[in-house]
């Protein structure tokens, strides 16, 4: 009896080792890639058409020369990527060049994990004057370019022009105030027999920041951090309160659609807009290409709305920039820089805007045929660039230089969620402000 058991057991063992051998052989095959080129790992957070276009650029770059191979890797959303970048620094898993969002600039810079692109600009005598000054300024410190602005967007208001026409509603003006938007939203909701929601503002901290910027109010003290490390935030000023009350008024009326927050929120928002169930929404200009591709109706675009009774101060840019890690060899860093230069080429920037809706940062791009064609087909596509062009940069609309802005977004988003679900505006904002202030104090203490 014992013998039989032994026999079976041996069989099992054999089977096991066989499986192990096959598996290890397979892993060996797939991971062994013979390539004499220098590998440049590139981390990005682009989704949808932007990812498609970016992958295309990478492919073209790899074909255009024989020295480097750029390997793109998608790392999830902007928030996730920041800690991944900081956490992997100095290991073999870390990227050579990475994309990191606007509000992480201060944090990435102070980590000391990157080589400022200024070093390569100077070495190459690279002509930066071709690159949009507003965008460059956002990512530089003391006249030194820290990173290269890449995907740069403007927040705008989208509306379904065909739908408004159908119900005989005058579209919002190019530079609308809150009450202009309210009017259109409510008319649309009522005249459609409550079938079409008028307006949506995604629960997104970026949009909250832009409301303050456009009203000319600082979100953090020390002039949004441009004059020193901020020690307190301002969520309870007139701008924030007025805006949130305006949204709540629309929610009460019923014309407002709340899609929530997070990745699926913006996807659902866009799906709602494309299927004609939503008339207007505030979102990044980066959505333009998806909207024009997916929409049968005519698309309308206006500037970001501003509070009544004042002129708009202009919004800051959004998006992300490209950084070069300093934990890789000089050759790898050089390769990363070559790739960045490639992306900034006039025709590539034009293709980028045409494919995504992010603004072309190279001034020569405007003359490229791709963009000319786009403007001819969809004149509204010009609006974001025009909004950017008419904005005079000042300390309230040039971004916020402070650490812990991811926390700021989490907290303001929670406040927005509470407000959207009916909580008193003032108390929600006060709670958020209190929370953020204590966070700022701890952060400053920990990083002293």
């Amino acid at each position, binding site marked *: 009896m014992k013998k039989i058991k032994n026999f079976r057991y041996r069989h099992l063992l054999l089977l096991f080792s066989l*499986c*192990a051998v096959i598996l290890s052989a397979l892993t060996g095959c797939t991971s062994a890639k013979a390539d004499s080129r220098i590998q440049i790992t590139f981390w990005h957070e682009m989704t949808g058409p932007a990812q498609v276009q970016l992958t295309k650029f990478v492919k073209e770059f790899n074909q255009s020369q024989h020295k480097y191979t750029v390997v793109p890797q998608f790392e999830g*959303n902007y928030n996730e990527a920041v800690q*991944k970048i900081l956490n992997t620094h100095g290991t*073999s*898993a870390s990227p050579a060049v990475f994309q990191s969002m606007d509000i992480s600039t201060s944090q990435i810079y102070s980590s000391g994990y990157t080589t400022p692109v200024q070093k390569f600009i100077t070495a190459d005598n690279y002509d930066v004057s071709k690159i949009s000054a507003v965008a460059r300024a956002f990512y530089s410190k003391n006249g030194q370019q820290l990173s290269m602005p890449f995907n740069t967007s403007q927040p705008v208001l989208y509306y379904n022009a065909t739908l408004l026409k159908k119900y005989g509603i005058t579209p919002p003006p190019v530079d609308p105030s809150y009450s202009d938007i309210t009017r259109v939203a409510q008319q649309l909701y009522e005249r459609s027999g409550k079938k079409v929601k008028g307006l949506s503002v995604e629960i997104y901290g970026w949009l909250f920041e832009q409301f303050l910027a456009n009203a000319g109010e600082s979100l953090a003290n020390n002039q949004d951090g441009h004059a020193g490390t901020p020690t307190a935030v301002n969520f309870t000023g007139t701008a924030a309160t007025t805006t949130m009350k305006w949204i709540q008024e629309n929610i009460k009326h019923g014309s407002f659609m709340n899609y929530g927050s997070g990745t699926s929120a*913006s996807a659902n928002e*866009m799906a709602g807009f494309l*299927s004609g169930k939503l008339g207007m929404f505030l979102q990044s200009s980066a959505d333009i290409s*998806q909207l024009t591709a997916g929409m049968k109706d005519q698309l309308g675009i206006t500037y970001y709305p501003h509070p009544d009774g004042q002129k708009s101060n202009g919004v800051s840019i959004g998006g992300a920039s490209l950084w070069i890690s300093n934990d890789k060899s000089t050759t790898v860093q050089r390769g990363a820089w070559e790739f960045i230069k490639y992306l900034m080429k006039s025709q590539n920037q034009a293709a980028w805007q045409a494919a995504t809706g992010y603004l072309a940062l190279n001034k020569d791009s405007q003359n490229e045929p791709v963009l000319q064609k786009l403007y001819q087909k969809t004149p509204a596509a010009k609006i974001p660039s025009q909004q950017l062009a008419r904005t005079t940069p000042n300390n309230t609309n040039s971004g916020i230089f402070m650490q812990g802005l991811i926390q700021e977004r989490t907290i303001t988003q929670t406040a927005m969620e509470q407000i959207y679900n009916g909580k008193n505006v003032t108390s929600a904002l006060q709670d958020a402000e209190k929370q953020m202030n204590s966070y700022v104090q701890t952060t400053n203490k920990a990083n002293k």
Partner: protein
Amino acid sequence: MNKNITGPNFQRLGQLFVLILLALFILIPFLLGFWTSLLPTADISKGSLWSSHISLDNYYTAITQTPIIRYLFNSLVISFFTMAAQLLFCSMSAYAFVFLEFKGRNTLFYVFLATMMLPFEAEVIPNFVTVRNMGLLNHYAVMIIPFLTSAFGTFMLRQSFLQIPGELKEASEIEGLSHWRFYASVVMPYSRISLFTLAAYSFLASWNQYLWPMLTTFSDDFRPVQDGLRQLQSQESFNNWGMIQASAAIVVIPTLIVLFIGQHYFKSGLNEGAVK
């Protein structure tokens, strides 16, 4: 038994109703998932779920345009090695707790038990730093090495080893079998049902890992399927529902098939466990 069949008609109808209701609750998400995986996304986003444009296009797209097969392969590798290692190391430590006599055995056993009280989720921060310092980030090893053994597996196998008749051990001592021989040729074959259960358990546990791989993998070359699906879902800013449902189906269909084939064995194993 007879009562159920010969009972009043309305009672049987009631039972059938409850059965069907419960079955629907379980089935609908599956069926809807599979159904939408056959539809073009354009139809889904218009809300016309009763479309007649049925095709396998989404599956084709998922397989050719996304690394879903690679994700599956990664998961297979990780789960397989985790399973094999746990079978080996858990059985070895369980053997020590049952058949070896040494000072501090009981204390050590309680120490093992204590680890079952500490959730891995509460330890990810230092563990991340550890694997980073070991240079394991973004590799299969990072998802296998921390799970090479488990206190739970040791505990379970110990229970099973305790069932081995003492006479066997005595006989082996008389025959002069070494511990290794006794372990390999008597203990292991004798406990194969428990080993099989542990294998299934550790394979599944590894297959379902989500948080840890999400923190430690950074490229599609090593990402397991759970996080791969997350990746696919978050990349599709345009909600390509058809393709996402198809990827989910690609992941779930093999497990369902294995489950249905293995169910018979699994159930009898279960009953055996329960009846004992």
